């Protein structure tokens, strides 16, 4: 393991299964990335990286790009699940048919831990706000919007959810119920809509509430997973609208202790997002959710 960074966990990405491909440089060098609304930087492994994790991923080589511009900037990002250190450079990023020129991005020199070697992604493309971007690097969507490359300042379909904090895609949840009874978040709570976290996660005691629910106990006692469908939905009520999550989506035990500074915080990760077409509306600082057809 690199001496600079002690080994960092990767829980948040453990179950992420959906990835996109972007091209960086001219000619484009391809990378598989997580489109992560829970962070704001773009970084990919580079030829300067000697960590084990880099031996099994695509590496960006600035020498092979006629449009690469180096900087004196460096980057060190702790994603809560892992850290990466590297240098900052500019180049053209091809994403979704858009040619995003002069995009600043990180070229990793060290990547933590040996487990990243097995990660299905090369790097991470952050889609949260610039205010939380490491080294003040402009996020991809901001750079695209600033150049007028898209006509609307949003990257999905819009319903209506006011943001309570600009930085992460953080929203207010009214309640979390099962069979019509509040099992958590009875007085309302905060949640972050995060495509870069695979699971639906919450504080230990409300999760214990959910797990202590009689029908779940019965299921575990019998160890009969085929009866999962007999479990009730967990219903998230957001802005007065109910968003049920079926048992087939939420059955996976999550471990971990919370240290949020502002009370009860939930992460609406891919498990939740897969149930709903999610909109990230930068123009109005809102998140929209629409049941998938």
């Amino acid at each position, binding site marked *: 393991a690199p001496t600079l960074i002690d080994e960092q966990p990767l829980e948040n990405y453990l179950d992420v299964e*959906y990835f996109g491909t972007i091209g960086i440089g001219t000619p484009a060098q391809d990378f598989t990335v997580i489109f992560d609304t829970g962070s704001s930087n773009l970084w990919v492994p580079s030829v300067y990286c000697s960590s084990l994790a880099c031996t099994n991923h695509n590496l960006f080589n600035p020498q092979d790009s006629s449009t690469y511009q180096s900087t004196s900037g460096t980057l060190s990002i*702790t994603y809560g699940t892992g850290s990466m250190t590297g240098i900052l450079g500019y180049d053209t990023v091809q994403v979704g048919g858009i040619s995003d020129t002069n995009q600043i991005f990180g070229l990793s020199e060290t990547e933590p831990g040996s487990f990243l070697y097995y990660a299905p992604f090369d790097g991470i493309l952050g889609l949260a706000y610039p205010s939380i971007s490491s080294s003040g690097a402009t996020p991809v969507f901001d750079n695209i919007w600033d150049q007028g490359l898209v006509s609307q300042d949003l990257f999905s379909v819009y319903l209506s959810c006011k943001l309570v904090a600009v930085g992460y895609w953080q929203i207010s949840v009214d309640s979390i119920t099962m069979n019509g009874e509040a099992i958590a978040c009875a007085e309302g709570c905060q949640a972050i809509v995060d495509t870069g976290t695979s699971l639906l996660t919450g504080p230990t005691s409300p999760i214990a509430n959910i797990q202590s629910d009689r029908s779940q106990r019965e299921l575990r006692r019998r160890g009969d997973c085929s009866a999962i469908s007999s479990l009730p939905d967990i219903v998230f009520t957001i802005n007065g609208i109910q968003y049920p999550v079926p048992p087939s989506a939420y059955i996976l035990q999550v471990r971990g202790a919370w240290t949020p500074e502002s009370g009860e915080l939930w992460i609406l990760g891919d498990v939740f997002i897969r149930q709903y077409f999610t909109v990230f509306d930068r123009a109005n600082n809102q998140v929209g959710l629409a049941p998938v057809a």
Partner: protein
Amino acid sequence: IIYKVPLVRKKSLRRNLSEHGLLKDFLKKHNRNPASKYFPQAE
């Protein structure tokens, strides 16, 4: 104009580690608070 980024589904890190017999070791070493992603300073 709507720009679409096609997402592809790949084997998750969990499954990859499990297939290489490393998942248990990973879970033993990685038991952090998933919210630390948002509060790195606190960590």
